[in-house]
């Protein structure tokens, strides 16, 4: 079948991550694929209307058309407030690393 593409749908909790592999037709959107994957039945707490979605770490809109080997990720909001964390670290005298770098 040439008009099917392989994709994955991921919903990750700290202690349990679900990664579903499936075949969808070419032209399927992210939202359709999530509904077809059945991950919403598995995790009723996912509110697909408000959840942010992405493909491999890039935020995307639910009507994005999928490509071969895409991994759809359903995100959860942050718990910590980034500003608060940074301020606290500054108070404790810890330096913020930029990360990446030449190393």
């Amino acid at each position, binding site marked *: 079948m040439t008009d099917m593409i392989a994709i994955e749908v991921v919903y990750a*909790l700290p202690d349990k991550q679900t990664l579903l592999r499936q075949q969808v037709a070419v032209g399927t959107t992210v939202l359709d694929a999530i509904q077809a994957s059945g991950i919403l039945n598995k995790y009723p707490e996912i509110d697909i209307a408000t959840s*942010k979605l992405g493909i491999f770490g890039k935020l995307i809109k639910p009507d994005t058309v999928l490509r071969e080997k895409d991994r759809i990720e359903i995100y959860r909001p*942050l*718990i910590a407030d980034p500003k608060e964390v940074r301020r606290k670290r500054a108070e404790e005298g810890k330096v*913020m690393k930029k990360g990446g770098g030449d190393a």
Partner: protein
Amino acid sequence: MITALLVMIGISLALGAVLGFSAIKFKVEGNPLVEKIDAVLPQTQCGQCGYPGCKPYAEAIAKGEADINKCPPGGEEGIRKLADLLGVDYKPFGEGAAPKAKAVAFIDEQTCIGCTLCLQACPVDAIAGAAKQMHTIIASECTGCELCVEPCPVDCISMKLIPEDISNWKWPYPVYALTPVRNEARKVEAS
């Protein structure tokens, strides 16, 4: 006389054509030894060998620049396979290169600020997350390479040991005690 010459020329032309055709048709891409070494390596792309990934390490081994005992994720079994493949002696892990217990990265959700730096560092896409969204390690994909620990600006990634249980227990690799063959025994065999 003429017939014999023509036959010989005909044969050489035919064989030449076959050789030329097969050179194009069955062209070997790259160095096959590198491919074989790469197949033995665990593909964690962790860089613990000092090379940017498994393929560069394989190339270095093939060229003879690197030792075969620099891959902790591959374990002793990996060194043995490489030694077999290359026909060299088994070499134990060097100082500080011994494999650690199997662990996966774990993100402390209370401090993660969604900066995506760990995502960029992960060589195997084992972290689900995007800018300003919670990042989560997909444990089944994580190779335990620790490359994500360093870039985190808030130090929220720690390595968690994988406890051995029924689902991931496996038979230990057999350990054979190798005793050197004594010379008399060899002589008896040879005679």
